[in-house]
């Protein structure tokens, strides 16, 4: 995420996506049809919270699948971004949901969630 060099088309695209969309989930499959249990788990967390997000399928784009790992220095998919900030993968998202930190994060960042 500290990579500010230009000229890497994949990184530029990622930067644009997380700038244009408040909540972005890089995942395997789509929100409707997740192709991996870890991606499905994060989709479920976001859906349960009623958060609007953009799901981006890395399986359809090998360059993106590799590029996102380099971009955030994170070896696995899914990856959740909120307001341009890398939040974490499946373990962190689930842990933050359980502790209530995720709800606080969305509120602090001005992202609407469903009333509990």
């Amino acid at each position, binding site marked *: 995420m500290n990579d500010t060099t230009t000229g890497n088309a994949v990184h530029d695209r990622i930067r644009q996506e997380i700038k244009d969309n408040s909540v972005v989930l890089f995942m395997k499959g789509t929100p409707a049809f997740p192709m991996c249990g*870890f991606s499905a788990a994060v989709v479920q967390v976001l859906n349960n919270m009623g958060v609007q997000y953009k799901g981006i399928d890395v399986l359809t784009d090998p360059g993106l699948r590799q590029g996102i*790992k380099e971009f955030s*220095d*994170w*070896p*696995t998919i899914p990856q959740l971004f909120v307001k341009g900030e*890398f*939040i*974490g*993968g*499946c*373990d*962190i998202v689930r*842990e933050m949901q359980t502790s209530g930190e995720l709800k606080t994060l969305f509120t602090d960042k001005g992202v609407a969630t469903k009333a509990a």
Partner: protein
Amino acid sequence: MAMKADEIERLIKEAFPDAVVKIDDLRGDGDHYAARVISKAFVGVPRVRQHQMVYSALKGRMGGELHALALQTETPK
């Protein structure tokens, strides 16, 4: 593509000598693990960074030969 639990533990302890490490082989297939790592090294470090430190201790295996490692990092009480 599998990795032994004691190899994971060895790599983590190599990077965090004070760590208490608990590894569970979730499915008994040598491919889906849960790891709990408790170390003073995590004090004051954001959670994403804590996990990055553990991934880095695994020297690139995470996401490759190690498909699934559910990770929980903590600081000593």
